């Protein structure tokens, strides 16, 4: 009997071991992954050959990617590092993608079909300069070659293996090379540039061996401004630095002849400062003034003629040669909600090869770039397709007057994310588009049952899998019981707000914010962050939730702020405010008004606090809590942390009852010669903590020091703020502080000698975990600090606790100066980190796990129990029972606990955790260039049945059991009767 129960107990407990990995067929059930490439900078089409037509693009996020021209899907994609900016791309030999990057010092060739790197060569030169990539069909020593100008050196590089065939330095200090031109069919190259901003220089170079054939230069009375535009292979157009005189310079056969034309001669009204637009259309160039874009044709020897003046936002593409000697280019203009795409031949402005009008979503803004490509129609005429990049960074392919596909690449640059609940499902109003009927439901369950009983055929299994993945349940537009369905609201760098459904990641709505749109009063608007403005749940359920978008007009900290309030159900911007003050900080207060609008305090650069919303009710609520509201600022440049309280109304110009002066309460000045602030961390506002007590072995209690006013600050030696390895361990240290931000009290200070940043930290409950590099051990380390309230520790009398005669739950003030003790421990960790977060559950009961964004762009879950300062090499029996893991010097990385499983979130920036309504589950959203979302249960889903639980099987079992009971009852009755008759 005892043995039996032991065996039973063994199986029971062994089945409780958490298994955190997921099965192959569970991929895609809870998670979704979206890949983006970012704002396209340059695109090259590859449509000549038979096979899949594709377009190669380089983006501002330093990505090179090839997309399927039919669907816009990514064939392959390479993310170059943040410092490896792509300068130019091209296709060589019809099979290699050539990229020039890192300021022209790295030239790479990638295999077009599969994206494998074929060769890489590094090009160095005498000085820093503009980088130009020119693919030619020149054959030097039997190799097709590329001409690259970078770092003051002209290189001819073999296409086959990347070998430098010849090089020619242009060492003259002041020379700024503007263009490298190879006239078609010739075997020489022109290098055109300015010297000392006023000399025009041309070099004619033999393309076969790099020999200098001719050098001409001519002086110009004024100064040149930047760009030149190529008008023909031997003529360029330039502007002088005042932007008022146009120059056309031709250098036929090395002879330089120039013509000066004042811009005012061409245009009647004074255009103001003009800039030349880079284009490569023969015979035509464009200049842009404040009001208009002007297209100018060059006729004969330096004669100029204005062909068109467009007042709209107009974008012009590069020239495309469509047949022998014929070039075409595209123009895109806006007209109301339509855009007009016009393709014109280069030689004849007035005729159009194509003119299309396409209805365009207003939420995409203006067209920023256009790339064209041609194809031969069945009637042998030319057809054109255009790839356009919009203001919101989206990418669209236009063909035959329609949008073939679009990509929302704005989502590759998310600034901030918040969440919003979905509408409540009301009786009679079904928001779900596809409700399953009973038959379908039954069919599905029968299929599932077959799967459970292992009777399913492979087709059935595929059907089951499809059903699970496409379950309409998860993508409904209403709230669910478990709180899994939410809206993720993301603000992108382009100033567009997206709402993504957590069920399947689709875009519910998107809105290009008017307040973050360029205008006269706001030249360079940037979005800063997002806050939940109104979260109705109790008494304002009729209201829609809304989010607050905070922005600023310009990059400097004293630029005026802009606010806009967006309805999170519809995406309508129902209020937008241009502030009269700057925005240095946004502090959401823990108070809401009667309509559940959260009070926010905006601190401006002059340290005035402004209360929003500006309603009398808000001010009443705020007045009652006035003396308890503090704020602090961390000046990381000067190493000063200051705390402020609010004083009375703003002294000064206008009587504004929503504006308050600040009074400095405390400051912590870190010695600038030895410490530099690199990281701060605070607790999440919405984090729920279940209990203040931590039970330790032998029924003992430690009281956590739980305060939302805790600030973690990490500083390093100023010398050591550079890259890892730039200093010796002796001159490098890392100091961490835990500071109470109400009183400025330093609760804990610790120095890690011989350690260096970058530091990633996360603060939750009463602990902080941070990651840094240990120079002595040559390894990354993670440390944990736990902070406990010692002044509560003497609450040990059971009887007092039983009758509730204790002060453990009475409100505490930071001024009561609780006596704290800290415990800390450090461990080695293999990875370097990009981001760190912690799981968040609705009540905070579930044990915590750290979510680590590794350098490989994956998200790894690490149990917090591994980072417990009470770990020791030989824990006692009681400690083992408590769940303390024996101390090891490094943290284990369990391959199954990668929550991104086989996927990568390229360019991972941050990990956001949101609590679901189900206590066991946290929703994880990781974003970078890619987006990844999943549900994660740190201690498994102990409070719900798993998704693959077979209700049908349960039902059938119950029915069968009931039937069996009846049958046996009847049988036994009959038997009894027979027995009696015997």
């Amino acid at each position: 009997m005892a043995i039996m129960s032991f065996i039973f107990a063994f199986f029971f407990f062994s089945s409780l071991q958490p298994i955190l990995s997921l099965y192959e067929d569970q991929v895609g059930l809870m998670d979704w992954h979206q890949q983006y490439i970012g704002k396209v900078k340059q695109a090259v089409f590859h449509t000549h050959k038979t096979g899949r037509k594709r377009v190669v693009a380089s983006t501002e996020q330093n990505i090179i990617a090839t997309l399927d021209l039919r669907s816009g899907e990514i064939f392959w994609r390479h993310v170059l590092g943040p410092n490896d900016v792509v300068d130019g791309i091209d296709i060589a030999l019809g099979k290699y993608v050539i990229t020039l990057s890192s300021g022209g010092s790295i030239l790479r060739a990638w295999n077009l079909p599969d994206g494998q790197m074929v060769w890489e060569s590094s090009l160095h030169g005498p000085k820093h300069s503009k980088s130009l990539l020119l693919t030619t069909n020149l054959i030097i020593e039997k190799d097709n070659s590329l001409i690259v100008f970078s770092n003051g050196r002209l290189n001819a590089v073999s296409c086959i293996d990347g070998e430098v065939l010849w090089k020619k330095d242009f060492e003259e200090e002041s020379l700024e090379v503007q263009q490298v031109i190879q006239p078609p069919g010739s075997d020489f190259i022109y290098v055109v540039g300015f010297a000392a901003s006023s000399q025009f220089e041309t070099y004619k170079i033999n393309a076969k061996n790099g020999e200098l054939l001719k050098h001409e230069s001519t002086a110009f009375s004024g100064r040149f401004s930047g760009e030149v535009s190529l008008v023909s292979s031997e003529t360029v157009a330039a502007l002088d630095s005042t932007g008022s005189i146009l120059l056309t310079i031709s250098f036929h056969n090395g002879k330089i002849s120039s013509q000066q034309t004042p811009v005012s001669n061409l245009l009647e009204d004074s255009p103001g400062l003009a800039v030349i637009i880079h284009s490569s259309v023969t015979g035509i160039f464009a200049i842009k003034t404040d009001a208009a874009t002007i297209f100018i044709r060059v006729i004969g020897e330096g004669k100029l003629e204005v062909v068109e003046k467009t007042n709209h936002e107009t974008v012009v593409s590069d020239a495309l040669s469509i047949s022998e000697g014929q070039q075409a280019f595209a123009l895109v203009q806006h007209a109301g909600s339509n855009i007009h795409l016009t393709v014109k031949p280069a030689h004849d402005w007035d005729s159009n090869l194509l003119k299309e009008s396409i209805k365009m979503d207003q939420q995409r803004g203006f067209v920023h770039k256009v790339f064209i490509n041609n194809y031969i129609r069945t009637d042998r005429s030319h057809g054109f397709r255009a790839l356009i990049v919009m203001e919101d960074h989206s990418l669209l392919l236009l063909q035959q007057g329609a949008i073939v596909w679009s990509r929302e690449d704005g989502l590759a640059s998310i600034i901030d994310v918040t969440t919003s609940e979905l509408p409540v499902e009301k009786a009679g109003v079904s928001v779900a588009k596809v409700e399953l009927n009973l038959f379908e439901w039954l069919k599905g369950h029968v299929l599932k049952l077959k799967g459970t009983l292992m009777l399913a055929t492979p087709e059935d299994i595929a059907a089951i899998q499809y059903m699970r993945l496409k379950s309409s349940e998860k993508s409904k537009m209403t709230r669910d019981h478990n709180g899994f369905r939410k809206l993720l609201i993301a603000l992108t760098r382009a100033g567009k707000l997206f709402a993504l459904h957590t069920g399947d990641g689709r875009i519910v709505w998107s809105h290009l914010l008017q307040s973050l749109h360029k205008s006269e009063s706001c030249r360079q608007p940037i979005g800063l962050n997002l806050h939940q403005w109104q979260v109705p749940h109790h008494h304002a359920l009729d209201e829609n939730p809304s989010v607050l978008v905070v922005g600023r007009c310009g990059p400097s900290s004293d630029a005026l702020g802009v606010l806009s309030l967006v309805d999170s159900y519809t995406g309508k911007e129902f209020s937008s405010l241009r502030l009269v003050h700057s925005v240095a900080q946004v502090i959401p207060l823990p108070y809401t008004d009667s309509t559940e609008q959260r009070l926010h305090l905006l601190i401006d650069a002059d340290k005035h606090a402004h209360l929003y919303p500006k309603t009398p009710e808000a001010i009443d609520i705020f007045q009652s809590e006035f003396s308890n509201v503090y704020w602090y600022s961390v000046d990381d440049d000067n190493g000063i942390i200051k705390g402020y309280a609010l004083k009375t109304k703003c002294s000064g110009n206008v009587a504004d009852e929503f504006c308050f002066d600040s009074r400095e309460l405390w400051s912590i000045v870190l010695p600038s010669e030895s410490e530099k602030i690199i990281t701060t961390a605070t607790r999440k506002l919405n984090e729920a903590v279940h209990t203040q007590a931590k039970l330790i072995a032998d029924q003992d209690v430690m009281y956590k020091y739980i305060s939302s006013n805790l600030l973690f600050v990490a500083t390093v030696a100023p010398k050591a703020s550079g890259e890892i390895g730039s200093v010796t361990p002796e001159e490098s240290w890392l100091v961490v502080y835990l500071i109470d931000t109400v009183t400025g009290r330093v609760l804990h200070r610790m120095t890690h000698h011989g350690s260096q940043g970058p530091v990633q930290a996360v603060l939750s409950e009463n602990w902080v975990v941070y990651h840094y590099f240990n120079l002595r051990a040559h390894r990354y380390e993670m440390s944990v600090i736990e902070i406990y309230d010692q002044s509560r520790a003497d609450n040990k009398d059971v009887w007092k606790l039983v009758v509730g005669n204790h002060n453990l739950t009475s409100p505490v003030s930071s001024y009561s100066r609780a006596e704290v003790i800290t415990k800390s421990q450090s461990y080695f960790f293999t990875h370097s980190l990009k981001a760190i977060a912690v799981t968040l559950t609705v009540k905070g009961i579930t044990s915590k796990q750290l979510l680590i964004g590794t350098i490989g762009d994956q998200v790894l879950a690490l149990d917090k129990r591994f980072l417990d300062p009470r770990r020791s090499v030989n824990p006692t029996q009681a400690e083992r029972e408590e769940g303390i893991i024996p101390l090891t010097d490094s943290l284990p990385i369990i391959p199954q606990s990668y929550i991104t499983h086989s996927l990568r979130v390229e360019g991972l920036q941050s990990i956001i955790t949101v609590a679901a309504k189900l206590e066991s589950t946290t929703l994880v959203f990781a974003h970078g260039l890619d987006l990844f979302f999943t549900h994660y249960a740190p201690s498994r889903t102990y409070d719900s049945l798993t998704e693959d639980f077979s209700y049908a099987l349960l039902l059938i079992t119950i029915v069968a059991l009931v039937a069996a009971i009846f049958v046996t009852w009847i049988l036994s009755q009959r038997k009894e009767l027979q027995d009696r008759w015997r």
Partner: protein
Amino acid sequence: MEKGKGVLGAGRRWAVDFSDNSTAPSSRDIPDPPGFTRASVDQDDSAVSRQKKDAEANWKAQKAWEVAQAPFKNLLMMGFMMWMAGSTVHLFSIGITFSALWQPISALQGVGKVFEPYKDNKVELLGPKLLFIALNLGGLALGVWKLNTLGLLPTHASDWVSSLSPAQEVEYSGGGIPL
């Protein structure tokens, strides 16, 4: 029975009456043999039965004491089992502990029943009963003690504060590195 009677009534050949008429001399026709006294037999009989009763009472009292002491063995046994079970919470130790708690309780509930067979107005049952109760209470105490060693009794501060929500804070502070 009816049948027999019917037969007897119809044609009885002979019958022996086994009924003992010895105690009723008046109804007898035949005088007692000489030297036989009926009274002495009667007296003797009652003495024997009294003796018997005494013996039985003794025996009952003895038995009652035995029954009262029985839990002691049980107690020792339980103690041994508990020692075997160890102080960690698992199925076995919990089973043992709960049986150790349940046994005395059920025994205490049935105190009357246990001593019912030994109920006699001559037998003093209070002593055994008290012993029985005391021993069972001892067993119960042992069970409770075991429960406590397993940590299943709320006798520590930790049991009362484990779900105490954090104290509310008076002050609120926000901020950080300027945007």
